[in-house]
């Protein structure tokens, strides 16, 4: 039987990466990702995981090593955060365009300057367009489950794309909580060996990431786009099969108490759980109309159809972003959702907040403030396209 243990989320993640029989880990330590790669280094050093651990000199090198490893057909994992993800940036585009199934955990962190080791989604949003599959998690159980699914999705022959598993830095990565760890035989049954079809092999040389003149570049990018959009089918199939085995279901857009709600709050990542408690309390008090919570789990490929379905009965949609897009018309998630709903006839009024920057908590009471003020803005308008929550001007 699977065992329920009290464990730090980073350690549980590293352990499940080990159970996935990962062949290569290439990583550079950076807060708040450190515990994940330290644990993996320990598993390899202790002989518990038969893998190659490559200590590299930078994140740019980490992703470069991962690309070589994945191209050689090895199951490949890395993890990073914040500035580390930014230093990898140009390699991220190469990994996806070359169809290399790398799994990377990102302990989401704010960006410098000023230096902040704490969490928000600034690093994620800067990598929005890199062509990776990107999935958000809300608690330790989801981190373990989604990471396991990520290997299978990324390595599926219909996908062959790199995948990021997003867990909020500190707010998830450093929390001890109950997690049901899978049994090794369950992992082995769920996750078949990696069979990368285009192996780098000296006996049968191939060129990868080759030169593309104008006559072919557009078609290459079109193929990449079709591939990423179509990966959703495999993601849904994988989550369904995961649910059949492990009993926990995952969806691109998750809903909480939305059935009778005309007002919906939308969050991503670990703050969603705090928001759920707010929804429960507001419904208990009953001094406000019924409110529900949507959580965007699948960030890329963006689940346009599921989003439209989820908001079709709502009057008000309040979106919390945890990153700024400087000089833009809204937060990155807010803008994307507005874009996805613009051509829909019946759509909710959208209110966009940016908050929880650089690790600042949003408490249960503050989520209530966001919702109540959001309803007011939706009904009475505002001079601003978006609000920065809790800022001391």
């Amino acid at each position, binding site marked *: 039987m699977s065992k*329920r*243990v*009290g*464990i*730090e989320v980073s350690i549980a993640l590293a352990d499940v990466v080990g159970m996935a029989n990962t062949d290569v880990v290439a990583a550079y330590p950076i*807060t*708040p990702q450190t515990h994940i790669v330290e644990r993996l280094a320990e598993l390899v050093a202790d002989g518990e995981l038969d893998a190659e651990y490559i200590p590299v000199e930078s994140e740019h090198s980490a992703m470069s090593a991962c690309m070589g490893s994945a191209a050689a057909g090895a199951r490949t994992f890395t993890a990073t955060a914040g500035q580390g993800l930014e230093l990898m940036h140009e390699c991220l585009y190469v990994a996806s365009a070359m169809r290399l199934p790398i799994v990377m955990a990102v302990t989401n962190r704010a960006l410098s300057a000023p230096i902040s*080791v*704490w*969490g928000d989604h600034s690093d994620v949003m800067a990598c929005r367009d890199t062509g990776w599959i990107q999935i958000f998690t809300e*608690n330790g159980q989801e981190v373990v489950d989604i990471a396991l699914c990520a290997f299978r999705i990324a390595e599926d022959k219909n996908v062959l794309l790199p995948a990021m598993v997003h867990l*909020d*830095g*500190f*707010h*998830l990565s*450093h*929390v*001890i*909580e*109950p997690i049901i760890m899978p049994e090794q035989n369950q992992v082995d049954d769920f996750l078949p060996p990696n069979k990368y079809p285009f192996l780098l092999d000296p006996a049968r040389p191939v060129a990868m990431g080759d030169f593309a003149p104008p006559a072919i570049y557009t078609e290459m990018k079109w193929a990449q786009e079709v591939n990423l959009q179509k990966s959703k089918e495999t993601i849904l199939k994988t989550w369904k099969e995961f649910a059949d085995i492990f009993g926990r279901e995952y969806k691109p857009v998750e809903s909480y108490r939305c059935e009778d709600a005309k007002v919906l709050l939308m969050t991503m990542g*670990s*703050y969603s*759980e*705090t928001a*759920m*408690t707010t929804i*429960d*309390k507001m419904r*208990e008090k009953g001094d406000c109309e019924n409110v529900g919570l949507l959580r965007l789990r699948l960030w890329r490929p963006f689940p346009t159809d599921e989003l439209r379905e989820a908001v079709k009965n709502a009057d008000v949609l309040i979106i919390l972003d945890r990153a700024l897009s400087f000089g833009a018309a809204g937060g990155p998630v807010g803008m994307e959702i507005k874009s996805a709903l613009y051509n829909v006839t019946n759509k909710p009024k959208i209110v966009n907040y940016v908050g929880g920057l650089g*690790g600042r*908590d*949003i*408490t*249960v009471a503050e989520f209530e403030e966001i919702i109540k003020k959001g309803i007011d803005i939706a009904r009475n308008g505002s001079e601003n396209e978006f609000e920065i929550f809790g800022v001391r001007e």
Partner: protein
Amino acid sequence: MELKEPIAIRIHGRGGQGAVTLAEVVAQAAISEGKYAQAFPSFGPERRGAPVQAYIRIDDDKPIRNRAGVVFPDIVVVLDPGLLNIVNVTAGLKEDGMLVINTRQTPDKIEIKLGEKQNLAAIDATSIARETLGVPIVNTTMIGALVKARNVVKIESLLEPLNKRFGRLAEKNISAMKKAYENTLVKEKKAIG
């Protein structure tokens, strides 16, 4: 149906005193009892000697859905008596809350300093840790005081997490915890309602 809140505990210590380990071990003990629990540090780069906080939430029967730091604790644990002068350790402590302090003074003396707002538990954890462990690291000793003051987990449930965390040093830490459990003075404000 009234929503029952989890028990919220805030631990005040200094970097290096093991506040985070205390939180981790207590949460693991609660989880091993089938409860829901979470433990986490007040996040940031660790600096030895600087005031730090760690948090625990425990719920008997439902998952804990709150990722924010503990602002209104039911219980506050203070590992270092020197912190009383520089940190407002009772900030947000609930009306019927419990303050568990490492101090050489009795609850009556401490009360004069902090006012009579809360229930108090006092233990000279530094002396116990010095005698039992040979070092003034009081985190495991203070677990005994915490559990004596408020029965958040069973003493037996702490043995496995402590054994796992401390290995060959576990026995001494368990002994320090038990000594504190036996010697902690608890002063309840008054019977509630």
